[in-house]
């Protein structure tokens, strides 16, 4: 019970630590596996993802086809392995772009005076009123479906979050003693921002970016589920899942496994992000 919270803390914290530790290891392992899949898909996939064989269509999972086959007789496991590249690239690039630009806006906004700060933050408020998926749908609809547009759409949608966190950090850091000290020995704006404010504001941004990769992949798979992604020869995870929806009654594995991979990947990323946050702020780990 809440009343006995203090007494059990040390004990349960220790008991939790091997379990969180192994969970962390599993997550890191799974992420590593997906990264390797995206780098060397040909070595890991058991079949060619483009090989279509009508006689192999809609086979249930077996030793020959680990996760079954789709309506064209393509091996689902191989499709997932090859599709990982697309999903990973979208996730990482949209975080780099969204986080980079958002971070820059937050940095300028937090450091500068009221007028600049106000303008930027009101723009961010406005972007926030349009839910991420909607904004991404609009951008993809106007620009036409393509991987690059998908990345752009997800990046724009994630801007306000990064900008707000960065601004909050900068506001907090810029009045710290060491920043004033550096100013007192004559440092310029650029030097102060680059060597003192930026490095000290980054950690929460990195936590957010880690978790952001998961969110970006969720959003991107949602968009390509709706048909706003690219239709390559090799479908990405979201599109593969949408193919599975039509065959649910006869072949559950087409829709099940791509979704499982998306979930496991996002769960792993979230666990890693949480662990990183707890490492930076041990107080949140205790609760």
């Amino acid at each position, binding site marked *: 019970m809440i*009343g006995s919270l203090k007494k059990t803390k040390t004990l349960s914290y220790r008991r939790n630590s091997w379990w969180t530790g192994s969970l962390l290891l599993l997550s890191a392992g799974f992420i590593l596996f997906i990264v390797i899949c995206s780098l060397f898909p040909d070595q890991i996939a058991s079949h060619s993802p483009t090989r279509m064989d009508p006689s192999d269509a809609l086979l249930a999972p077996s030793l020959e086809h680990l996760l079954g086959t789709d309506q064209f007789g393509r091996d689902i496991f191989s499709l997932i392995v090859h599709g990982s590249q697309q999903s990973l690239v979208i996730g990482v690039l949209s975080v780099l772009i969204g986080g980079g630009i958002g971070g820059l806006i937050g940095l300028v906004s937090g450091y500068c005076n009221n007028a600049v700060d106000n303008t930027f933050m009101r723009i961010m408020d406005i972007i926030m009123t349009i839910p991420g998926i909607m904004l991404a*749908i609009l951008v993809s609809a*106007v620009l036409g479906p393509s991987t690059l547009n998908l990345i752009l759409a997800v990046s724009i949608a994630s801007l306000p979050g990064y900008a707000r966190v960065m601004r909050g950090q900068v506001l907090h850091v810029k009045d710290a003693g060491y920043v004033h000290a550096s100013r007192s020995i004559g440092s310029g704006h650029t030097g102060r921002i680059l060597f003192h404010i930026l490095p000290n504001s980054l950690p929460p941004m990195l936590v957010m970016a880690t978790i952001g990769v998961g969110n970006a992949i969720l959003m991107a798979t*949602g968009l390509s589920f709706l048909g706003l992604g690219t239709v390559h020869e090799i479908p990405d995870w979201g599109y593969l899942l949408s193919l599975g*929806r039509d065959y649910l009654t006869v072949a559950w594995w087409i829709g099940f496994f791509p979704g499982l991979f998306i979930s496991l990947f996002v769960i792993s990323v979230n666990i890693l992000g949480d662990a990183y946050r707890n490492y930076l702020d041990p107080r949140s780990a205790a*609760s």
Partner: protein
Amino acid sequence: MLYVLSRFGMAAGVILGSVTLVFLIVNILPGDVATLLAGDDVPTETVNQLREKLGLDRPLIVQYLDYVAGLFQGDLGTSYANSEPVLDRLLDNLGPTLALTISSMIVAIVLGLILGILSAVYQNKLLDGIIRVLSLVGVSTPNFWIGILLIWIFSVQLHLLPSIGNGSFEQLILPSIGLGITGAGVITRLIRNSILEASNEPFIRSLRGKGIGHRAILFKHILRHALIPAVTMVGMIFGEMLAGSVVTETVFSRQGLGRLIVDAIDQKDIPIIQGAILFTAAFYVVINMLVDISYRLIDPRIRLNEK
């Protein structure tokens, strides 16, 4: 009263801002609507004729002022696909989407509140562990996949509930759970954290020192304190759900704003998409305004600060 009025003014300003933003995205991004509509292999004259017909050849600022002036008269433009007024088509489809969003919201709040409280009360026990894993899975799983799994389990395997269509209450159950689970995960985590945080506050410790029972402290004092961040979150989640309904409606083949948008994407019917997004943005702003105002009811400190 003054506060409520000023919040109204701010909300109107933000909605005007999102109108402008959406307009800019549609018109400034390199994609050309007329070319997109006409197709690739069409001579330039046909594209130009189309552009003239849709009024896209006018200067941007004229188009913008025209659009905004239209908004004040309840005119959101006409659909490219069938020349119907956008507003009529949106209003026709609003009902089912609102029903889905509200029932998912109920699923999310009820599940999130119960699980969050249980998780905090049994902190670091087995039940807490299970709930924490469940809420992590909830926030990390794409809701279209949950939807597909629900259809597979409850419709295809067990034949318990209908998987597609709308109208009856049974048809609302699976989509609401599918859409509500993500929100439930977010709310569970938030409630757990804020209860644990609140239970270390000095005023709770002094209550405990006075010998008041755990249950009374939890329900009368901690929970009220912990609800404040949760209420903020509810406003944000409502927007996400309104947007998430696009995907959920596709999964469950339901009629609604989401389907309207997906069909509009296929037909490149930009005015419909534009209008639907403005609808969601307006809803989002209004809900969050209500949330801001409701703080004053929950948290007396905010009321005091203003005096």
